[in-house]
C-alpha cells in the first residue's frame, strides 16, 4: 500500500501553484504538512482527490504503483483516498444517515444492495466510538452545523468509509479547544497500521493533539524541509521565514 507523489506540477487557471512536489504517504504513519497561508496545501489535497478545477501539468500520483491522475474523483475515493475538507459543502435535505448510506452503497458491486441493518449497526458503533449522539444522523449534511460539528462529521465519514489514505485539510480551523480535542481524539482512535494519515495545517496547535511521526514544510509549491515532530515546534517558535533562506541555500 503506497501513495507516491512525484514531481507534481499543478495550476489553477493560469496560475502555477505546485511546482515539482515530491511526497510519499506511508501506511500506519501520521504525517504532517505545514506551510504558510497560500503555499498550496489545500491545492495539494484537492489535486490528490481529483478536483476538476486544477490542472496537473507534470508529474504523477501513484496509488499502489498505479497513476491515478486519469481517474475520476469518485473512483479515487473508492480506491481508498479520503479527504476531510477544510470547508465541507452543505447538502440540503440529505440526512447524514442517507448521505453515508449512499457513500457505502457506492462501494458495493453493481446490483448489490446495502444491508440496512448492518449499516446502522456499523454506523452506531462508529458514532459511539466518536462519542456522537444518534440524533446527529437525522440532521441534513452540514446545514446549520457549527465549525466543530462540520469537522466531526468529516471524521465520522472517515470512520465509516475506512480509507487507506486520509488527508485532513486544516481540520483544526475554526475549532475551539474543546472541539479540537474531540476531533483529535477521533482521529487518534481511527489511526492504525491499515491507514496513512496526512494532517495539513498551518498552525502547530493541532499537532499537540495528533502527534505526527513526520513533519514536512510546503512552501512555494514544493516540500522544502522535512523532520520529526520537533520541527513543528521550531516553526511555531521561529515562523517560516528562516526556512525560506535555508531552502534557497539548498536549491
Amino acid at each position: 500500500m503506497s501513495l507516491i507523489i512525484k514531481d507534481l506540477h499543478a495550476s489553477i487557471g493560469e496560475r502555477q501553484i505546485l511546482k515539482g512536489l515530491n511526497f510519499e504517504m506511508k501506511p500506519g504513519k501520521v504525517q504532517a504538512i505545514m506551510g504558510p497561508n497560500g503555499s498550496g496545501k489545500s491545492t495539494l489535497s484537492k489535486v490528490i482527490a481529483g478536483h476538476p478545477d486544477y490542472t496537473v501539468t507534470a508529474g504523477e500520483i501513484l496509488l499502489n504503483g498505479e497513476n491515478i491522475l486519469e481517474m475520476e474523483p469518485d473512483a479515487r475515493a473508492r480506491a481508498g483516498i479520503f479527504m476531510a475538507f477544510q470547508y465541507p459543502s452543505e447538502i440540503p435535505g440529505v440526512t447524514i444517515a442517507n448521505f453515508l448510506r449512499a457513500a457505502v452503497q457506492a462501494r458495493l458491486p453493481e446490483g448489490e444492495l446495502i444491508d440496512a441493518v448492518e449499516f446502522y449497526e456499523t454506523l452506531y458503533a462508529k458514532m459511539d466510538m466518536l462519542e456522537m449522539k444518534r440524533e446527529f444522523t437525522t440532521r441534513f449534511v452540514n446545514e446549520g452545523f457549527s465549525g466543530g460539528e462540520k469537522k466531526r462529521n468529516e471524521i465520522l465519514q472517515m470512520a465509516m468509509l475506512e480509507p487507506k489514505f486520509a488527508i485532513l485539510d486544516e481540520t483544526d480551523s475554526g475549532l475551539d479547544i474543546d472541539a479540537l480535542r474531540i476531533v483529535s481524539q477521533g482521529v487518534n482512535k481511527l489511526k492504525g497500521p491499515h491507514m496513512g494519515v496526512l494532517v495539513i495545517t498551518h498552525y502547530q496547535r493541532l499537532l499537540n493533539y495528533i502527534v505526527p511521526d513526520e513533519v514536512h514544510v510546503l512552501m512555494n509549491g514544493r516540500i522544502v524541509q522535512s523532520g520529526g515532530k520537533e520541527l513543528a515546534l521550531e516553526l511555531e517558535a521561529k515562523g517560516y521565514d528562516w526556512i525560506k533562506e535555508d531552502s534557497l541555500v539548498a536549491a
Partner: protein
Amino acid sequence: MSQTATPDIDIDRSVGDFHYDTSYEFDAGVGLSSKTVDYICDVKGDPQWIRDFRQKALKIFESKPMPTHWATEDLENIIFKNIRYYLSKGQVPKRTWEEVPEDVKRTFERLGIPEAERKFLSGVEAQFDSEAAYSNIKAIVAEQGVIFVGSTEGLHKHPEIFKKWFGKVIPTTDNKFSALNSAVFSGGSFIYIPPGVKVKHPLQAYFRINAQNFGQFERTLIIADEGAEVTYMEGCTAPKFETATLHSAVVELVALKGAKIQYITVQNWSSNVFNLVTKRGLAMEDAEIKWIDCNIGSRLTMKYPGVILKGRKARGEVISIAMANSGQHQDTGAKMYHLADDTTSNIVAKSIGIGSGRSTYRGMVHIPKHLKGCKNNTECDALLINTNSRTDTYPAIQVRGNKNSVQHEASVSKVSADQIFYMQQRGMTEAQAMSLSVNGFVNDLVRQFPLEYSVELKRLIDMEMEGSVG
C-alpha cells in the same frame, strides 16, 4: 380501419422504454374529423347524449386557437392530422390477468403492476393505448359499494351519477385540450365512493402508451360522497418513439361534504410525449382535495391541477415535483379558486432543471373580495443542476379584500460543482451525487407519499440522472 401493426422499437435499459409489436382490432385511423368521433362512438356504443357531447366538443376544439400567446411555441409542433386517436384490442377490460392478451400482460408485468396490486392496492385499472385491458377491484372494497370501472362502463352502467358530474368541474370550453379530450376521450377511471366509506388502500390506474403517432385521451371522474375517503394513484409510461406522441387527459374530482380525495400521479413519459392534461377538483363544505403530482419526462408537460373550494372550510392542496432534463419543458403549477369563507389552500411546487431542461411554474390563486377567513400558502422552489437550465415563476395571486391571508415564498438554488465534488470524494459517481441532491431537495414532499411511491420516485430520479451525465 383494422389490424394495424406498429413497427419494432429497440429495447433500452430504462424501465418504461420497451415496446411489443401488437395488432389492434379497432383503429380510428390517422387524423381527426367528425367521422373519427363517430367511429369512436360506434365502437363504444355510446348513447346519443355522449355522441352529441363529443361532436360539440370537436367544434370547440377546432375553433380554439393554440394558447401560444402565453405558452410555448413548441405546441405548434403537434400535428393533429398525423395522430391516431383510437386504438384498441377491444372495449371490455378483463377481470383477471389470465384473460389479458399475452403481449399486453407482459407489458404490465414488466411495469410491476400485478405485483403491486397483490401487495398494496384495493383495485387496479391498466390501460393499454385507448382502452383498459384489465380492471379489477378487491371484493372487500366492492362490497362496500365502491364503484371502480372505466369511463365507458361508468357512463353505460351508472348514468345517474355519471351524468350529474361529467364535464361539470372542467367544462369542454375550459381550454383547447380539454375540448380535444371531450371529443375523443376513451379509457380512464370512473370511481364512486358511497357516503362514509373510507377506502383503506389506494386504487391505482396505469396508463401505457404502446403505439407510435398515437394520442391517449383518458377521462377520469372520481366522486367521493359525503364523508367518504379515497386515494387514487396513477402511473404512466411510454416507449421512446421517433415521432411525437400526445397524452391529453381530463381528470375531474368531486369531494362532497366532509369527503377527502388524494390523487397521486407519478408519470415517467418518454421524451417525445406532449403531455397536456387538465385536472381539477370540486371541494364542498369541509371537504379536502389533495393533488400530489410528480412529473418526470415528456417533451412538454402543461398541467396545473386545481381545486374549486366551493363549500365553507374546504381545503385544497397541490404538491408538485417537476423534473426537466435536457430537451424537456415542464410547465406546471396549480390553481386555487376560493369561493367560500374559511377555505384554505396550500401549494408547494418544486422544480428541478437539468442541462438545458426548462421548468416553469404557473399559479393562480383567486380569493374574491366578499370572502373572509380564507388562507393561501404558496411556495415555489427551483433547483438547477446546470447553469443552462432555465426556470420561470408566474405566481398570479389575486386576493381582494383584507379579511384573507396569503403567503408566498419562492427560491432558486443550484447544485454547485463543490457539492458534487464533495459527494464524489465520498465515492459517489457524478450521477449518484446529482440524484442525492435532487432527493434531498424533494425530501420534505416525498415523506408525505405512500412508501411504494416514494421508492418509485427515487428510482426514477436515479434513472433520469444516470441518463443526464457522460
